């Protein structure tokens, strides 16, 4: 140390441009790259390609753990496997019981909606991807998946597991994609409590077992054990995918908002396989498109930058009351007209179908909760 600034490139004459000059060139290049990377645009294309070049390295780096897993699986004992098979059998039976009346319910639902045929499943297509690597630090909760643009995966595509929502595609390469998990501290997900119909936003905390619901007023109906599903208002996720179960509700009388946390239903660190889903466009449960929401800034950078955007866009979906400037409040939940709780597909496609499924047990239409935009930068950092 303490020797900076001396030396320079004196002794290096006759070998082309000096180090200083070359450093300058690369520094400028870096700054330009950073600038355009932030702005998005043509660099995304370059990045897409770069992702492909780096993918072999990512695979190589993760091969030891993959090999270890493979070893463990290969040498699993008969008893362990038997146990697993038994467990799966039980699970299958339970799920068969659960879906037994599905067809009947669907046609009943169609009748209620005044349709002459049952609606197709909102998930139109799915693609199984395998987890290459998991990063679960407090600052980044990400997955690397072995499917990318060449399989049709697109940016901000919803990614789920059998148990619930996992996250969305954050960055894609031709053969790989990076998933930002719902627990990432930069991710916000519009959700709805299945029991009460209360809508709010679930933010990641950086811990893979916890989500936070910071914008629920004290008097809203939320209980420990409530299941949260996606509300479909973010333009990304279709309505009704299970997200989390509420684990803690604290109401401090001195605070305007309740302290609520939830645990994701998806086993974020354990799952080796994930599902990319494509939702049917004109389905009532399909994610609301930004256009349908008529936000003044239609889509400034909507699709990419996965996270805060959905949150930012959501409030507009709640055509609720005059936006008073109360900071961060649960949007929605107020307009008694549109909130349909469990049954099917509310929110989505306000205009088209949705023959208002009747008077809803609107539990909490209390004081005008403004659609308060949790600032799109949200509780990032």
């Amino acid at each position, binding site marked *: *140390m303490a*020797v*900076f600034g*001396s*030396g*320079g*490139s004196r*002794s*290096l004459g006759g*070998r082309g441009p000096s*180090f*200083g000059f*070359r*450093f300058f060139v*690369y*520094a400028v*290049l*870096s*700054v*330009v*790259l*950073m600038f355009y*990377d*932030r702005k998005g645009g043509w*660099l995304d294309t370059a*990045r897409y390609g*770069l*992702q492909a*070049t*780096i993918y072999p*390295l*990512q695979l*190589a*780096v*993760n091969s*030891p*753990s993959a090999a270890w897993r493979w070893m463990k699986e290969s040498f699993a004992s008969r008893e362990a496997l038997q146990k697993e098979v038994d467990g799966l059998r039980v699970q299958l039976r339970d799920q068969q019981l659960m879906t037994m009346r599905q067809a009947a319910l669907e046609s009943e639902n169609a009748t209620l909606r005044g349709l002459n045929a049952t609606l197709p499943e909102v998930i139109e297509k799915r693609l199984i991807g395998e987890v290459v*690597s*998991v*990063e679960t*630090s*407090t*600052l*980044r909760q*990400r997955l690397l998946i072995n499917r990318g643009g060449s399989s049709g995966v697109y940016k901000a595509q919803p990614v789920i597991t059998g148990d619930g929502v996992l996250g969305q595609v954050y*960055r894609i390469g031709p053969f790989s994609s*990076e998933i930002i998990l719902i627990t990432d501290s*930069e991710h916000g997900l519009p959700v709805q409590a299945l029991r009460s119909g209360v809508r709010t936003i679930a933010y990641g905390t950086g811990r893979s077992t916890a989500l936070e619901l910071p914008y629920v007023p004290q008097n809203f109906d939320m209980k420990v054990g409530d299941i949260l599903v996606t509300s479909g208002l973010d333009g990304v996720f279709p309505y009704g995918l299970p997200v989390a179960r509420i684990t803690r509700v604290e109401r401090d009388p001195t605070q305007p908002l309740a302290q609520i946390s939830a645990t994701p239903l998806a086993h974020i660190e354990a799952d080796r396989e994930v599902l990319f889903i494509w939702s049917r466009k004109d389905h009532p449960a399909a994610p609301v498109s930004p256009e349908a929401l008529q936000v003044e800034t239609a889509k400034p950078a909507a699709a990419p930058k996965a996270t805060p955007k959905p949150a930012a866009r959501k409030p507009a979906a709640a055509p609720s009351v005059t936006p008073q400037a109360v900071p961060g409040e649960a949007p929605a939940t107020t307009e008694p007209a549109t909130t349909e709780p469990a049954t099917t597909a509310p929110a989505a496609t306000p205009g088209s179908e949705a023959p208002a499924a009747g008077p809803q047990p609107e539990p909490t239409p209390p004081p005008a909760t403004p659609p308060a935009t949790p600032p799109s*930068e949200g509780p*990032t*950092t």
Partner: protein
Amino acid sequence: MNMARGEPRWAVAFTVLLALILQALPLPTWLEAVRPSFIGLAVVYWAIYAPHAGGIFAPWLAGIGYDVFKGEVLGQNALALALVAYIAMSLHQRLRNQTLVQQSLFVFAMLTLNEFVVWGIEGWSGHRMSTPWRWIQPMIGAMLWPFIALLLGRTHSRA
């Protein structure tokens, strides 16, 4: 000084790639917290002992690779590593005459600078990517320096 034909280009390419792999290797959280910047160490080494083999281009490219790998702002590590390489190259003659332990101090300063630049850019872009442990990592890197230097010294014939 040895001239172009004797440059250990392959050694540079290979060791920098290896450092990139070491850097990107998924580790348990506690180990990850104390992992020094292997790329930084390799870059400083080659800047001192073979400044012409990789020039500033190799560190810069490695930085781009790392940026793509880690996936936040493209160019942040590239800029930091290019800066480190430039400073180390500017001082390489003086540094070569120091003992490895003396060099460790310089390495510590360089790795800290590296972290500092990246930290600054992360702050600017709003994507924080690491924990306060990052300020410990340069110290560990400096402690590893003598071993790294001896190890890398075997990959080429010193001038």
